[in-house]
């Protein structure tokens, strides 16, 4: 316990609902639910990285209390199944041939994700004295068409297991699911709560942080507390007092900036370098190609470009994205797009 945790994000990770920064109304409703010992399926909605999962997790921890370990599961809808799970799902999908009846030997077409990750958990009865189990599905919108599979699941096993679905985009959740859930909107942390938190950390780490700097930090981190704390730690390395320059300098290094720097190199027209860089980025961040193109579009919208350049670039990206869908080799499509972007170096 005496050991100093070197990563602040982990060090200041909240351990119960009370420690969560701000969001009073949500905390109160959740605490009320804990007293009531009952809740319907819930759908947590809020923008990226503001702590939805953390709140849901800490809530279930307090709700289930000592039965937490046996009755709780957190699954990620956007992490693909591994080989074993895939195999298990395929094996489960067969009904034994030795059983008699109309369904003998038939293959059940449940999506592998539900078959492998969800069903084994929800089908097992509650353990201990808890009223029901809790299943958290993160990034629920990533399931796409497979959301349909949850409709009956939520009804059939609803008594045994309540689900907390977490999403950033309520528009991409199908309406039958929305109608089965209580919607909990989770907002980003408010500035004054954020200030309190940062000041508390500053006191503990003996940092000098002015109010202005905290406001800038709040803006840069877009309400993502973990990102803010990361930035604070990075800035603190070169000295205990933190100013704007340090913050900006460090925020430049963060992840989406590598796509910006990729574009910058591309606008200089140095294709061999761009290609090398793009391969490096894709293999280290494991971007999906469509995700990669989306990031490029995001960046292009942020950059100060002329109307002509912007519209042309977006046109090219759309074209490449479509070709990547049909084609066999992703690298060719990315290279083709980047080589076109390189052409625009004349307009820069």
């Amino acid at each position: 316990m005496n050991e100093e945790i070197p990563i602040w994000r982990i060090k200041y990770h909240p351990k119960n609902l009370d420690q969560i920064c701000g969001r009073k109304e949500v905390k109160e409703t959740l605490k009320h639910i804990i007293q009531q010992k009952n809740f319907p399926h819930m759908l947590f909605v809020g923008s990226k990285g503001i702590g939805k999962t953390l709140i849901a997790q800490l809530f279930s921890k307090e709700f289930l209390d000592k039965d937490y370990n046996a009755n709780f599961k957190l699954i990620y809808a956007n992490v693909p199944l591994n080989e074993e799970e895939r195999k298990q799902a395929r094996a489960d999908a067969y009904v034994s041939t030795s059983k008699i009846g109309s369904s003998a030997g038939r293959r059940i077409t449940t999506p592998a994700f539900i078959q492998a990750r969800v069903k084994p958990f929800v089908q097992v009865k509650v353990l201990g004295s808890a009223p029901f189990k809790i299943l958290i599905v993160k990034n629920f919108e990533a399931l796409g068409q497979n959301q349909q599979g949850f409709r009956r699941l939520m009804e059939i096993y609803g008594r045994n297991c309540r689900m907390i679905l977490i999403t950033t985009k309520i528009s991409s959740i199908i309406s039958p699911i929305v109608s089965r859930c209580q919607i909990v909107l989770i907002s980003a942390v408010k500035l004054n709560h954020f200030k309190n938190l940062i000041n508390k950390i500053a006191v503990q780490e003996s940092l000098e942080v002015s109010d202005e700097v905290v406001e800038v930090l709040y803006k840069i981190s877009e309400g993502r507390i973990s990102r803010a704390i990361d930035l604070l730690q990075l800035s603190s390395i070169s000295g205990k007092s933190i100013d704007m320059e340090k913050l900006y300098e460090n925020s430049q290094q963060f992840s989406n900036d590598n796509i910006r720097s990729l574009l910058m190199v591309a606008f200089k027209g140095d294709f061999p370098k761009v290609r090398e860089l793009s391969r490096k980025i894709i293999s280290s961040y494991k971007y999906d190609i469509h995700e990669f193109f989306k990031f490029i579009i995001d960046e292009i919208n942020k950059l100060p470009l002329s109307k002509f350049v912007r519209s042309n670039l977006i046109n090219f990206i759309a074209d490449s994205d479509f070709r990547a869908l049909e084609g066999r080799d992703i690298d060719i499509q990315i290279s083709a797009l980047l080589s076109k972007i390189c052409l625009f170096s004349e307009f820069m």
Partner: protein
Amino acid sequence: MSKVKTEIPWVEKYRPNSVKEMALPTARLGGQRVRLAEELMNFIKLFFEERKRVNAENKQIREFNRTVIEKDQKEEIKIPSEKAAILLEGPPGIGKTSIVYALANDFNMDVIETNASDTRTRATIERRLKETTKSRGIMDFITESKEKLILIDEIDGIYGVQDRGAIPTVIDLAQNTQFPIIMCSNEYKTNLQQLYKKVRRYEVHPLPKQEVIKIAKNILKKEKIINLKEEDLELIIDKNNGDLRGVINDLQGIGQGKVNGDVKELILSLRRDNIEEIFSLIRNLFQVTSLREARNLMDKSDVDYNFLYKWINENLLTFIKSKRELSVAFENLSIADEIFGRIRTNQYWGLLPYFFDLFAGGVALSRKETPAPKGFRRVVFPRYTTGTYFSLTNVEKEFIEKINRKYEISQVDFIKDFLPFLKILCGTSRKQLKSISDWLELDAKEKKLLK
């Protein structure tokens, strides 16, 4: 009659009968240098021990199952696939097939071989191999039969419509076999990845030059060819680049022809389809000036197009420098890729000519203003491949597991959000890196991720 005898290929004539008399290529297993012959012998011995054990246990299980109801029945156990099958991977002609035959000869086993000359659809593989692998024929009970060794040669030649479903069958085979399986392959292929996970993969390296010279001289002595000069022999060996089979074939080609006059020209004229051909094809392709030339070039060569357009993607940059021309070339290549995708998914093979014209002619002719590059250009392998979905390396997986003991984070968040931060943080000073890696109890490999 004696004439017929001399006409069997020397490659078959001098194929070694025993592992002991053969020049053994060096091999690597997961980066570690191993002795191939011993590994293979151990593999076969272990397999039969394992089979004996598994069969004995299965017999007990079967007896047990007969006494209980269906619900309580136990499943029969299988030989783990990495003990049942191995894969030898290496360039052509270095003795992969030979070592298997020599080994079978040493152990007094029959070899059941299937290679790229057979159509390998699911049905044919099953017909050929499955019955032999699963059961033993009636004759086997009457006579003391030989054990069998299954050799699936040229497994990287499995692709396309004709061989559909072959890989799952091979995997299935490896899991249910009663006989050891050895597979041979020339190169790493992405569509074989399923298989790589299931079996042990040995990388076999070409023989050193001295060994090849020794063998070649031995053959020359036996065939009584004396007028081949030392330097010509070296030329042959250099040209073949470790391919012993190629050397022997060349020797036969020269030895049975007339060996006076200019041997050098004869040697150089004995070309064989290998990497060098792709190199020169690509070099020539960027020199063409008309679509017809490009077409002719493609028609003449029988390099796998599946693969050739990836070579072009990799090497475009060395031949075309101007930005404008590059973008035109890539535009054509990307359309070619799109068409190829459609061909493969919908089986529109009629579209193939467009694909050829686009990726060969379209790319080569994108050069309009600047002249064709002169002099020698280095052509490189298409090394870079992108995974199709979010796949983590083992090191990354272990890293995440370690982190999850202290801080819960998903794989996706870890790679996209947390790891970049850790990299930056650890990049600031060595002290940071040490304190973080100590706290997370990382080992050297995982530390590398942070750099």
